[in-house]
């Protein structure tokens, strides 16, 4: 069994999907953790934070070499996940041949389990928008980014950029929809990734299911709350 044979087999491809999926899940933890810093500005915490905590965290991420290297890995992971996902979906669709006149529908499986390709595509579209909004200015163009000084270090005011971006209702709506797609994608993807890695013990699987469901809810909700909170000016 050569490496090539392994990774081009149906199980190997699933493995790639699962591994990149889990990698992206860990990225989501970091991402949501940093983004959640904007909530430091909530009145209950510190009305005067004004994005300081978030901006510092963002600056740390942008200025640390190791993380910048990992960012490359992240993009590689995303691209692999996307390309492999599309190839698999295409191949799987072809293996049916003639379609059923009366599809099974939800008779035995969940709609979101069957719609990973569609949900993934929605997330991809969202991702393009999202990168254009924040990642491109932060890394390259610096358009719309004011400098801000914390502890004598000059940083980009990403918080300000978010406030401006999320003052538009349609953008907020798109972001919430993006989070919604992410939620359903994770609902299936989280536990499915572990199955693909070979976790078969029923006790472990049901635990993973619980964690997966909790994770999907918390992460998607936190992400969705950020544009909403900014639009409604709970923060900033």
């Amino acid at each position, binding site marked *: 069994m050569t490496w090539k044979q392994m990774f081009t087999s149906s199980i190997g491809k699933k493995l790639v999907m699962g591994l990149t999926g889990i990698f992206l899940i860990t990225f989501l933890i970091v991402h949501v953790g940093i983004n959640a810093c904007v909530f430091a500005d909530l009145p209950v915490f510190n009305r005067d934070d004004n994005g300081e905590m978030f901006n510092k965290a963002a600056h740390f991420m942008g200025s640390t070499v190791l993380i910048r290297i990992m960012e490359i890995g992240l993009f590689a992971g995303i691209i692999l996940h996307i390309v492999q996902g599309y190839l698999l979906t295409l191949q*799987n669709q072809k293996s049916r041949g003639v379609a059923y006149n009366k599809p099974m529908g939800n008779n*035995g499986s969940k709609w979101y389990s069957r719609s990973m390709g569609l949900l993934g595509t929605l997330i991809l579209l969202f991702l393009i928008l999202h990168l254009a909004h924040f990642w491109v200015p932060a890394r390259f163009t610096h358009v719309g980014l004011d400098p801000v000084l914390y502890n004598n270090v000059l940083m980009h005011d990403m918080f300000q950029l978010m406030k401006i971006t999320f003052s538009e209702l349609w953008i907020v709506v798109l972001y919430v929809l993006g989070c919604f797609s992410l939620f359903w994608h994770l609902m299936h993807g989280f536990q499915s990734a572990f199955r693909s890695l*070979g976790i078969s013990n029923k006790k472990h699987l049901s635990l993973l299911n619980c964690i997966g469901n909790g994770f999907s809810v918390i992460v998607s909700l936190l992400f969705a709350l950020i544009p909403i909170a900014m639009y409604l000016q709970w923060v900033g």
Partner: protein
Amino acid sequence: MEHKNINLKLKVWRQKNSNDNGTFETYDAKNISTEMSFLEMFDVLNEDLIKEGKDPIAFDHDCREGICGMCSMYIDGRPHGPWTANTTCQLHMRAFNEGDTVVVEPWRAKAFPVIKDLMVDRSAFDRIIQAGGYVSVNTGNAVDGNSLPIEKDKADASFAAAMCIGCGACVAACKNSSAMLFTSAKVSHLALLPQGEPERQTRVLNMVAQMDKEGFGACTNTGACEAVCPKEISISNIARMNSEYLSASLNSEK
């Protein structure tokens, strides 16, 4: 049990042979006793068709006890029809109501080409077993049956996987037409037993390779296979096969 007679409309896939394009035909099934099995209803319909000088509907069936795995209809959007843990031959007309229209299709998968009407060619399953779904022991080699104690839980789990009847409902139900539930059931059956140990790695590698070669899709863990399996084979067998496969391919030195 109270029984009554009902009238149904049947929309059935007709296809003369594998080269034909095929189409749906509609038939009236009149005065059907709810005590009948679904296939007995087809028997009655076929008798009528023959008397009318038409070609009867071809379908696979044999034991009609839910164990041979030969019957294979996709009934009203579900392999083997609306009952769970059931085969078409054991589906009884009690499951339907007066005036229902029932759509009957063959298993749909590229790896299961239609032979005629509702019959499909499932020899791909045999080839997957040929690739390694056995213990290589020649007749006459065995030691005493009790010289190999097997933990009851493991024996039971192995039996639960070995119950697979090879009907192909898992493939028919899967949106990817994946044969992983079938393949994993055999991999699990043998991997859970000490007898299967010597060939454990080659078995899973070869069976998966054959499965891929046959043109089945890849599993995306939707669970549809498990939901329609007449023997309720658990989808966790697929996860077990994944782990067997990964450890086998990592351990192989080639």
